[in-house]
């Protein structure tokens, strides 16, 4: 089953009088249960692609279908609903809500799904517990290490049980050891059946994926399947 399907997707911006094509003619599919790495140097269009895949942005041309829904025909609230139910985000800089405890951070996506408070707290605590953070429920981001913060962020991405886990340079701010742990976690989640799309500039990290999509200058230059 196709979870994501991009056909000739392009994204252009107006920079003053110039038109910049950040993404051109990108076509790819991601199947359910797949682990795909999108690799490329900075400025290759990775972030633009990630924004489109994550329904934070819309393509200017082409067609993007996620979980059977054509993004081009959806309004802002529909996109928010897809982000809420279908996608779990993990960002490079953790992006936890400041001054908010780990459990409240993890519970926030459930808030926007309308889950009652008690159930939210229980599910968030269970998710943190599963990732080995059971002792950190009440800690605020500033009281935790980078690795812990990123695991809280992963717990937050998983708490809604999304079809797609979308990670943007998840190890970029972490020390080597902690980075390896996070990658190991993604591998484990993939083995358990989760669809993972990982965006990175680091070929070593990309190597753990089933498939690698190389981006350069806004277009796909190579698709490689794991050896």
């Amino acid at each position, binding site marked *: 089953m196709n979870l994501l399907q991009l056909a000739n997707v392009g994204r252009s911006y107006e920079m003053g009088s110039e038109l910049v094509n950040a993404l051109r003619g990108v076509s790819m599919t991601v199947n359910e249960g797949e682990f795909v790495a999108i690799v490329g140097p900075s400025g290759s269009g990775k972030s633009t692609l990630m924004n489109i895949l*994550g329904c*934070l942005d819309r393509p200017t041309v082409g067609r993007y279908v996620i979980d059977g829904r054509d993004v081009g025909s959806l309004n*802002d609230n529909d996109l928010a*609903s897809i982000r809420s*139910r279908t996608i779990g*985000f993990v960002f490079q800089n953790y992006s936890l809500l400041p001054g908010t405890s780990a459990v409240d951070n993890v519970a926030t*996506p459930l*808030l926007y799904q309308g889950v009652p*408070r008690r159930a939210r707290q229980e599910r968030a605590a269970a998710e943190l517990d599963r990732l080995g953070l059971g002792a950190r429920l009440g800690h605020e981001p500033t009281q935790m290490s980078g690795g812990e913060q990123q695991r809280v962020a992963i717990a*937050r991405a998983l708490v809604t049980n999304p079809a797609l886990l979308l990670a943007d340079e998840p190890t970029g701010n972490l020390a080597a050891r902690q980075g390896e742990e996070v990658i190991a976690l993604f591998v484990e989640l993939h083995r358990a059946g989760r669809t993972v799309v990982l965006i990175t500039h680091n070929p070593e990290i990309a190597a753990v994926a089933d498939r690698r999509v190389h981006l350069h200058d806004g277009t796909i230059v190579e698709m490689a399947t794991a050896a």
Partner: protein
Amino acid sequence: MSTSELLRLAFSRLRRSRARAALTMLGIIIGVASVVALVGVGRGTTANITASLSSLGTNLLTVSPSGRGSTSGLTLEDATAIGQLDGVQAVAPEIQTQATVAASATNSTSTSVVGTSSAYAYVRAYEVWQGTFLSDVGVDQSLRLVVLGATVASDLGLGAEALGSTVTISGLPFEIVGILQAKGGSGFNDPDDQVYVPIGTVSKYFVGGGSVRTIGVSVVEGADMQAVRDGISEDLRIRHGIGSGDDDDFSIFDQAQLLEVTDSISGTLTLLLGGIASIALVVGGIGIMNIMLVSVRERTREIGIRKALGARSGDILSQFLVEALTLSVLGGLIGIAIGLAASFVIGQIAGWGFIFDPLTVIVATIFSLAVGVVFGVWPARQAAQLDPVVALRFE
């Protein structure tokens, strides 16, 4: 998102920045407190004036000469005629002159001497403190009797023991028969700073002719004021020979009318005071808007994260709007408490007591809510309309 979820978000946010929240609320607190206090003071003053006016008697009509120069006028016969009319309980004609009242060669005061009838105290609702008011016999025979106003008595150092003794008025000895209870000043003719003598005595010893300054008319309880007025007017027009097209040479003044006018004046005054104070409220609202705009900018990234986690624009809008509303309503409630406390203290000091008006509280609450909406919507819209991609990149 439900209201309770939004309030929980707002309160946890305000708890994290207490000092800022308190300072932001200060504007609203001051605005609402001054509105509530000034309206309270306005109402207190009104109640005070109304009370002192009603103490003069609401069933009192005052007939005084008007038009055609000051010499024209009312006569004692007019007063007697009015006394015969339907609905009239008592009449008290009044002649006035200025004189020196002396208890001894070195102890004197200059004051108004009012010549009147025995019904005067009743018509004007004056209370006698010591002795009696002028008697019917004293008035009929134009005896040299005097009743002292409270201020005059204290100026001359006279008390209960002075009853039966004499004072001189313009050199003539008068017997003191009574001293009035202090009534409190109102207007030009302070009833406490006057002495009262039989009306015939004044015409006999001080002022020539029978020209009457005013005739106080006490209307029978429950009688139709307007009908009595019309009766007096008709009677006086006939007596004075006024043609049907000509103006009256007298005017009839109704105490109840005066009350209404005073009420409406002080109501306007209260509104004016409240209006001035509400400027502070608007300034407080602008303070909230300012802080909310700063807050939206500071929390751009948070907004981006929330949108990535599935928040719709409406969720962000209501989050920021409820935050502004929480600030304004909380500030409003504190302001109401302070304003009520202030008007209580002012009321105690000024002596008209504390008048709690639930309407003020309701209006003030609605006002601070409105301030929150008006000044919170724009920042909240700014937050809601942020592009998630841009907001997430914001550092």
